[in-house]
């Protein structure tokens, strides 16, 4: 595909990023302490070796088919489309994957890498708990010791997932530093990794962090977009007009977007968490209201104060409650290929309820942000146009949060 010269937009070659040092334009890179360089070099060398190895690919594809249950359906949501009015709404059903979210695509891939290193212990950070569950799951399957770092705040918000991880044999380590959420869990995981690098593989859950993680996670998650592209051609006989996905760190979004980047007719919308509203400052939308800086090993858009301190974010959804974003998204924003928009807590909640009632599909609160934006977008588009929404996860884990809002004790 990349060998075909593109007529326009040729200044930007989406297959040429990141460069060999992990840069997406000015973003990405490897901003870590010297103590971590060795571990990252080792990981990069392993990934370069296995990336195009047919045996590794075959194993990855096999696991995705037989363990995860791929391909996930591309579902035409007919009733939702009718009720919304406007463009045809399709859902990429990542919620139907084993463990209930897109996160498993990446953990399957990284666990295969871990297996090649011979390391017996994996660690992960988690916000909503989906990545923690996905990591605990692959660790159980491979017989690896698994420690998951999770902010104390998120442990309260996502108690069901905490219990799932424990049942899967993982140890959930509460993180009490800083804001006690995903960013602090990531700090703690990096501290653990640097201390235990000899026997530990760090499975990062999103397309952020030091090189090569953003590239590696993107490539593992791109199965979403590859399937969706093929399914769209087969089922609708054409490419979609727009893609919509929520963006916290942004792994489900980059997974859907990446295989479509060169399809100029396909518009893309990454939906950040607007929290209480952009103007309140209490949100998690660095691409809409942040500036570039350095955190967690990469340069990217961040939420920070005038002294360069990272500020606490807010979102109703734990999985989007993160002050940074994957560096490729920062670059895609700057080059203008993807539009980054926001949906606030209330809009996401309304979309959660609506999709549940209209389609019998309960979206994760994270994915509900994409669902809400897709409704807005569909109304501005023609009925013969088509939108694919990444339904990145199912909402079962959020039932307690929703019940609490409704004043119900479950």
């Amino acid at each position, binding site marked *: 595909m990349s060998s075909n010269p593109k007529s326009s937009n040729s200044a930007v070659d989406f297959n040429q990023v990141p460069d060999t040092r992990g840069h997406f334009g000015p973003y990405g890179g490897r901003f870590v*302490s010297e*103590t971590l360089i060795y571990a990252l070099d080792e990981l990069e060398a392993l990934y370069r070796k296995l990336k195009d190895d047919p045996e590794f690919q075959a194993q990855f594809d096999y696991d995705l088919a037989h363990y995860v249950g791929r391909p996930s359906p591309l579902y035409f949501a007919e009733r939702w489309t009718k009720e919304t009015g406007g463009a045809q709404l399709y859902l990429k059903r990542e919620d139907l994957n084993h463990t209930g979210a897109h996160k498993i695509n990446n953990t399957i891939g990284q666990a295969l890498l871990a297996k090649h290193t011979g390391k017996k212990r994996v660690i992960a950070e988690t916000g909503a708990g989906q990545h923690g569950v996905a990591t605990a799951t692959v660790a159980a399957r491979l017989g690896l010791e698994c420690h998951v770092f999770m902010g104390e705040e998120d442990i309260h918000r996502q108690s069901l997932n905490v219990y799932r991880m424990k049942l899967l044999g993982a140890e959930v380590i509460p993180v009490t530093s800083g804001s006690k959420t995903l960013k602090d869990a990531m700090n703690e995981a990096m501290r653990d990794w640097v201390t235990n690098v000899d026997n530990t593989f760090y499975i990062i859950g999103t397309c952020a962090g030091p090189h090569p993680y953003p590239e590696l996670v993107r490539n593992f998650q791109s199965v979403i977009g590859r399937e969706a592209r093929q399914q769209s051609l087969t089922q609708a006989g054409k490419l979609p007009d727009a893609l919509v996905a929520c963006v916290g760190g942004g792994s489900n979004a980059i997974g859907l977007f990446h295989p479509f980047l060169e399809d100029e007719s396909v518009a893309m919308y990454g939906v950040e968490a607007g929290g209480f509203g952009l103007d309140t400052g209490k949100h998690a939308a660095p691409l809409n209201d942040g500036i570039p800086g350095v955190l967690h090993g990469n340069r990217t858009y961040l939420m920070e104060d005038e002294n360069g*301190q990272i500020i606490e974010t807010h979102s109703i959804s734990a999985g989007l409650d993160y002050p940074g974003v994957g560096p490729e998204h920062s670059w895609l924003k700057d080059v203008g290929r993807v539009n980054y928009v926001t949906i606030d807590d209330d809009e996401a909640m309304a979309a959660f309820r609506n999709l549940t009632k209209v389609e019998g599909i309960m979206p994760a609160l994270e994915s509900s942000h994409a669902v809400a934006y897709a409704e807005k977008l569909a109304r501005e588009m023609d009925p013969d146009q088509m939108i694919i929404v990444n339904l990145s996860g199912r909402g079962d884990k959020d039932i307690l949060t929703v019940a609490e809002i409704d004043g119900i004790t479950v």
Partner: protein
Amino acid sequence: MNRIKQRFESLRQQGRKALVSYVVMGDPAKDVTLPVMHALVENGTDIIELGIPFSDPNAEGPVIQKAHERALEHGSSLRDALALVKQFRETDSDTPVLLMGYTNPIERMGYDTFIENAVDAGVDAVLTVDLPPEEAEEFNEHLKQANMENIFLLAPTSSPSRQKKVTDMAGGFIYYVSLKGVTGAGNLDVNSVKENVTSIRALTDLPVCVGFGIKDGASARAVADLSDGVVVGSVLVNQIAALAEQGETNPATYAEAVSVIIAEIREALDKNTLDK
């Protein structure tokens, strides 16, 4: 000449080892750090390493992490650290001061503004924990033009080619991290320190100081023979934390407490020199 070069030169002439002391700016209060810095110098510190508080200090262990949190509670910032160094220089024009921190606060201020203010304040060197040589080219140019040293870490896991890359860009001295892991962790492996310091010395004329895991006079002595000096951090910050927890507000009490620790380590380092 840069104060760091001067200091190592005079230490070499005296046959003594360098003692580098780390505290976090504004821990636990803004008025504590200046008397602490002076006390560190009076009791034998050769180089002050001043930590810039950051919200996400992910190379630090729990002890120094909490120091960053205490400092941030009342809004200590890079700006405050620069003002503090300026104040320190009013009565101490000899002791080198090294700022140690993370990239983001410096970038937020802007390289130009930062360097201009750092020169004006009398800062001699900068150690940016999360800015390895690959990402440091632009910053390094700025530092060079201002005659400021760029201090880098090397770790037990740094390969020989890595050691070369780092020493090629480094100035001032090489900060050898004696352990895998975060600050304040674990126990010292003297043999591994020896091996690595030897291979670093084959690559550079810069002095090599060893940090992470030095807790007292005895551990300081153990590595001093193998290197040009030691860096002491967590043991000082621990003492500050203990006082902070007791609700101590008198800066003089903090100054006295760190004096005791540093005096013991200095004595052990100098005794080591005499014993040789």
